[in-house]
């Protein structure tokens, strides 16, 4: 866990928060410039937005599964709730206010369903919980396929597109910041203690069921938000987009990046999007390779890229040192 919460009152530019803010601003500006100058093609922009949506999804799922230790296989279900909620609102209110109301409604509705799903199922142990969440996601999908208002299997199209880089950046950076802040608080620590040893946590005064449900709801809210953003960019949504495979896609990102590492999720979302793009022409092979990746990671490096550590200045310095050391060796 990040002990940077201790670093108060040091030099202004060394303060971790200020450093992070500057990095975020830099990223925003760089990408925005790349878009304005057309260096980032339309295709790459789609990839960029997809990466951001996946980051939000992965961070939410990581909170539930990586940090709190509750195995959820139904994350895509909450994404679909958010997507449909926002789409139905913006299609009737195609203004910027409609969009914002749509997002808020998406978050709230996804959260409510998260509460309904979470309360009964979070008493269950790992494998049972996984299947229960899977079951719920399937029920949600089947409901959407059979409802008139969601236009059944054909889905909704012509959804007003409000999402662009500035919006996407705001929501993505906001998500990562909020979740990161949460994890550095006592509530976040309570969640992690549940993962580590639920009985000990409860004995030390942590209301474990309450926190499991809380983490689940928070994760679901962010999934709902990601769904709303997805709908407002890709302007077409169908129930089949949000099936078990989508939940698995997000799980792969989280596992690959490291269960319990936020920066891992961010990194993994980027790396896997790059791999996916490279494998565009081998669509069938892509899933087979992903499957192999899952198996290989779990057997040989179950902690994924980052384990439960975060990217930090100390880490980057270490990497820098080992790289330059290697250069010296080679002469």
């Amino acid at each position: 866990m990040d002990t940077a919460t201790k670093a108060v009152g040091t030099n202004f530019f060394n303060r971790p928060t200020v450093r992070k803010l500057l990095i975020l601003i830099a990223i925003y500006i760089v990408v925005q410039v790349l878009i304005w100058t057309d260096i980032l093609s339309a295709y790459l922009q789609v990839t960029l937005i997809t990466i951001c949506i996946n980051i939000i999804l992965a961070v939410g799922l990581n909170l539930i599964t990586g940090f709190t230790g509750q195995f959820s296989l139904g994350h895509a279900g909450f994404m679909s709730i958010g997507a449909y909620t926002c789409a139905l609102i913006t299609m009737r209110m195609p203004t910027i206010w409609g969009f914002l109301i749509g997002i808020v409604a998406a978050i709230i509705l996804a959260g409510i369903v998260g509460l309904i799903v979470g309360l009964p199922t979070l008493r269950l142990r790992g494998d049972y919980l996984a299947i229960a969440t899977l079951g719920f996601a399937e029920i949600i999908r089947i409901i959407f396929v059979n409802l008139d208002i969601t236009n059944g299997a054909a889905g909704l199209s012509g959804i007003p597109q409000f999402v662009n880089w500035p919006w996407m950046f705001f929501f993505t950076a906001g998500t990562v910041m909020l979740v990161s802040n949460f994890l550095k608080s006592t509530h976040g620590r309570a969640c992690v203690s549940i993962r580590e040893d639920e009985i000990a946590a409860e004995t030390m005064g942590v209301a474990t069921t309450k926190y499991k449900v809380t983490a689940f709801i928070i994760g679901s809210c962010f999934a709902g938000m990601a769904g709303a953003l997805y709908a407002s960019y890709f302007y077409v949504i169908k129930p089949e987009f949000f099936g078990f495979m989508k939940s698995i896609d997000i799980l792969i990102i989280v596992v690959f990046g490291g269960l319990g590492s936020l920066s891992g999720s961010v990194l993994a979302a980027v790396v896997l999007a790059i791999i996916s793009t490279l494998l565009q022409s081998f669509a069938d092979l892509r899933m087979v390779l992903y499957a192999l990746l899952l198996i290989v990671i779990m057997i040989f490096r179950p902690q994924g890229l980052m384990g439960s550590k975060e990217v930090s200045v100390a880490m980057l310095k270490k990497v820098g040192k080992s790289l330059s050391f290697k250069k010296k060796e080679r002469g």
Partner: protein
Amino acid sequence: MEQFLQQLINGISLGSTYALIALGYTMVYGIIKLINFAHCDIYMIGAYIGYYCLTVFKLGFVPSLLIAMVLCTVLGVSIEKVAYKPLRNSSRIAVLITAIGVSLFLEYGMVALVGAGVMSYPTMTGVLADQYKLGQITISMQQIIIVGVSVLLMILLQFIVKKTKMGKAMRAVSLDADAAQLMGINVNATISFTFMLGSAFAGAAGVMVGMYYVSIKPLMGYLPGIKAFVAAVFGGIGSIPGAMIGGYFIGLVEVFVSGYVNSLYKDAVVFAILILILIIKPTGLMGRAEREKV
């Protein structure tokens, strides 16, 4: 009344296939506490092996069934050795994720090999095409075979579990693997044997379903797999009689919901049953509650 009896017959024959698949889930869970996500894909591969035996090698139904069972056995045991055994001491999440990986690998590997589309079993001729009429009710020979083969295999399983040394070993390892090992039981061999049995049954179910429902596709295992898993949970995961009862229960529920309510919701009902069981009595009909020692 007659529609009811017809549905009953259909439900029992469907339930037989679910029971066969459910047995694999329950036995593996009982012995290594793993939900073998890849199990339903062994069922799918069984169907494809049957298909190739019947069409390419022009073998009869019985040889195809037996070959599918044998090859699925090999596949199941290989998967256990390669993917699950290395993770025996890892966290539950890690093994579950690996099982998902194996399942995806089999499904999309199949898609890469034969395409995602549907393939059809050749139409059955001779005895296998027979239908028997009792008033308004039709029973096909295929349904009789499905139920017959399933019941035979289940009786065989009961015999193995209750009367053989290996069966005793399976029960011992399910209860306490460490103690079983200290008693001289070869735990690895026992686990492999369990996978063998489960996979053979799944393969058999695959061939019979292929014969009866005719169309097969690489993702055909997903839905029956989940339903069979619900059946296993309903009956009490880890309990062999439970899986059998559960399989028939789910088969009947599905057929009756489809016939009397709305076939669109038949899958949703099964998921709803899953949720209800997990909330009300997660140990199912015949399961045992596990206690963590503090």
